[in-house]
Every structure is written in structure tokens, then in C-alpha cells.
């Protein structure tokens, strides 16, 4: 079972898209994009406030509330989530899960607190990974700007032990390049933990997605540029996955029954 996820990086009120998580370009109103992806059969949506950690605030609540109003698939929200209180606010606004990176690195105890209070399924560990050497990656924060000194494999292992229920694994090296996912990184993490792993960063064509699932053993694939720029649509992606015998939600048939 593979989940196809549309990832929307938000700055202020806009959907943005960068390369290597930087050089941000404004794409437009996130709600219009998310509504389209929902209707097109995205299995989930991920919203990341790309500048929240930089400014030490979280302004996603309002956008989440507007988005969640008309979207009836799961919504993961991240960026600037610092406390159990922040999580409570986002969940009350319509988010189903929160993705935490910076605050978890600074205070790993937050992972346990969130997972104990809201369930581990709610606590998505967001990891920004940059390759340090062949087969070695370092975890970064703040859109790949700040080094943490943490080895990604060690960090994910610890975070899952603390209660992270899912891993959003973004390759900073690949993000926005449309050159494909970091497959060795994905395999290293999928083999390491028994919680679901979401591949993020680098999708440019269908082969990239197939590789992430078949070689990287990802449980879900997050897509951004490839969708935002209209290079591929979700219905195209879904039918290509089906032809490849991947198990997907049978979205079209379900809706036609209604």
C-alpha cells in the first residue's frame, strides 16, 4: 500500500517552492492547490511552514483551518511546532498529524510528550538530511541551513524509540532538483525502523517514484514541484502506479459509487 502525498511549503500566505529548500519562488494561494490535489485523489497533504523556525513563530493555524474546512483526507502540518500546546492548537484547527524537526532536535523529550499525549501516529519526525559521506547523512534544521551534528540514522533510531510514529525524510541535496529521491538514504531508514517512512525531495518523473517505492522501500511519497508546476497530475501518477501493480487507494471507483 503506497500513499501519494502532495507537499505544500508555505511562506506567509503563499505556496512557495525552492531548490534544496532555498531560493523560494511564490506559486500562489495554497488553498487552491490543495483543493485541486484533494479532488485529484491525493491520499494526504503535508503543509510545512518554511520560515516558521527562522522567526520562531507558527502562523499556520489560520491556513490550516481554512484548508481543513473542505479537505477530507489527512493533513500533516509542520514548521515551527515547539510545544505540546502548539500541537494542540494545530490539531484543533484541523491537522491530523504534526511534523517536528527543529524543536525535536533541541529537545528530543518533546517527541515523547507529543506521542504520549496525542498518540505516536500524530508525531511525525521531520528530517532534513544532507549527505556527509557515502552512506552517511547529517540531520539539518531550518530548511537545510543549520547543521545539527546528528547522524541521520542514529537520530531516526532514537526518535522512533522516543515515540515518533512516522518519518518524513527530506533529502536536502535532492529537494527541488527533480533529479530523483536519495535512494540509499531511503533504504537506510526504511530498513532501520518499523514506522512508515515518507520519501520527500527530488521527484521529477514517474521512475523516481517507482525507485523510491521499489528500491527505497518508502511507504509514502511526497511530491511538490512535479505537481505544483503541473508536470504530472495525480490521476496520471495513480494510473501509472496501478500499471506497475502498486497497491493504491481505489479512489476513482469509490467516488463514482456515491
Amino acid at each position, binding site marked *: *500500500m503506497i*500513499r501519494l502525498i502532495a507537499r505544500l511549503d508555505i511562506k506567509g500566505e503563499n505556496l512557495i517552492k525552492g531548490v534544496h529548500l532555498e531560493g523560494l519562488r511564490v506559486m500562489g494561494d495554497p488553498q487552491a492547490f490543495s483543493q485541486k490535489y*484533494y*479532488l*485529484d*485523489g491525493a*491520499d494526504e497533504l503535508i503543509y510545512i511552514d518554511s520560515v516558521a523556525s527562522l522567526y520562531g513563530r507558527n502562523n499556520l493555524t489560520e491556513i490550516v*483551518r481554512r484548508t*481543513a*474546512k*473542505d479537505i*477530507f*483526507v*489527512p493533513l500533516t502540518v509542520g514548521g515551527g511546532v515547539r510545544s505540546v500546546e502548539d500541537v494542540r492548537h494545530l*490539531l*484543533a*484547527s*484541523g491537522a*491530523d498529524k504534526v511534523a517536528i524537526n527543529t524543536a525535536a532536535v533541541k529537545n528530543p523529550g518533546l517527541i515523547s510528550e507529543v506521542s*504520549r*499525549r*496525542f*498518540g*505516536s*501516529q*500524530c508525531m511525525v519526525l521531520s528530517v532534513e538530511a544532507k549527505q556527509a559521506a557515502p552512506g552517511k547523512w547529517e540531520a539539518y534544521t531550518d530548511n537545510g541551513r543549520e547543521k545539527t551534528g546528528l547522524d541521520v540514522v542514529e537520530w531516526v533510531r532514537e526518535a522512533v524509540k522516543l515515540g515518533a*510514529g*512516522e518519518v518524513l525524510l527530506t533529502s536536502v541535496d535532492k529537494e527541488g532538483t527533480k533529479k530523483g529521491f536519495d535512494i540509499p538514504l531511503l533504504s537506510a531508514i526504511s530498513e532501520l525502523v*518499523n*514506522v*512508515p517512512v515518507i520519501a520527500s525531495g527530488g521527484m521529477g518523473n514517474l521512475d523516481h517514484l517507482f525507485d523510491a517505492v521499489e528500491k527505497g522501500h518508502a*511507504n*509514502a511519497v511526497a511530491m511538490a514541484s512535479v505537481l505544483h508546476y503541473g508536470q504530472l497530475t495525480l490521476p496520471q501518477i495513480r494510473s501509472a502506479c496501478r500499471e506497475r501493480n502498486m497497491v*493504491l*487507494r*481505489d*479512489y476513482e*471507483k*469509490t*467516488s*463514482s*459509487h*456515491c
Partner: protein
Amino acid sequence: MKKQVVIVDYGMGNVFSVSRALEFCGAEAVLSADAAVIEAAQYLILPGVGAFPDGMQELSGRGLVEPLRRYARSGKPFLGICLGMQMFFQSTEEFGFHEGLGILPGMVKQIPDRKADGSLRRIPHIGWNRLLYGAAKDGAIATALGDNFWGYFVHSFAAETAKPEHRLAYCDYDGFEVTAVVGSENILGCQFHPEKSGLAGLKLLARFLGEETTANPAFQTELAARK
């Protein structure tokens, strides 16, 4: 006149999403933790995200355990979602033994973290899964939801009904049969989140309200937008 649905607001549910989904289906959603409002409801939903013992504690701290049991006996439609459905059962083994509402006989147990071949099964069970009906294949739920109904699941524990006829649907999670829909008379429970399962889930909510989706303009608009 819109149908009014009371959603039990006990601090453990994604009440915003559940309310929105009900509004989509043409109903009016009222959040309440007031026993009198809950018992007077025409339709009641017990949502829930989180741990079973915490959920029961929150309910009992608000004096809602007995009112919910009485409502269940009233014959009026009562839907439990995810943790809400799990709490319909007698007990759980989550963080030790804990009593539930006991509306349906059975208990809630951890999904085994090993598959039959000994390999690891990923826990929590997160994602979309197709409903299977087994012995209940000719029942009203199976008929209404159809063969291609996919629900969105997020959970680590699953219900085991004491009476096989209370299990109306299940799904296959890497070889483990996860109880997906339970029910008996006015009681309906689903392990997946209908408010997060796209149009299929909205259809289940509409059914709970006794509505025909074909007559609902919101469903028509949504279907048209997909073409």
C-alpha cells in the same frame, strides 16, 4: 430542517474535521460535553484520537460514562470513530487493563507487531485500506459501502468483537484482520476516520444520518469537480 448531530467534545477528538464533514453532509454539528445535551441528541458521535485509558479518564472526569451508556440503550443512532469506537468495548489492554464503556461485548488489543512469517509489521497501522466484509457480506453496511470502499486508518490497537455478528467489516493489514466497522442495532463504530477518507467516508457519515448522497448538492458539486 437540518439534522442536528451532537459530537462529544471531551478533549480527545479531531472535532473540527468531524464537524466539517457533517456539515458537508448537510447536517448541523453541535459540540458538547454536557450530559443533558448528549442524552437529548437525535444523533450522537463519539470521536477520538489518542490512548484508550486517557479517553475513558476524560469521559469519566466529565461525568459522561453513564449518560453515554444510557444513550446507547436509547435506540437513537450512535457512531463511534477510531478511539470512540474502541471505547464502545468492554476493555482494553492498552497501558495495562482498562475498562471501556461496555456498549458492545469484546475487547481492544494491540495489533501484533510480527507477521506470520516472523518479519516486522509496521505499527501504527497508518494509511488507506480496503474494507472486506467476510461473513457480513450480505449485510446492510456491506451493501451500502460496496466493494471498493477505502478508509483511512491510524491506530495501533484493534477491537475484537465477542460476537462475530458485530463485526460488519474488516481489513487485511499485512495478514492481520483489523476490525474496521462494528455495529448492532443503533450502534455503529468505525476504526478508520470517515472524516478523513475522502468521498467514501463522507458517504458513510451520510448513511449514518439516513441521507441519500445522490440527493445532496455538496456531493454532486464535488463529483462534478472531479470529472
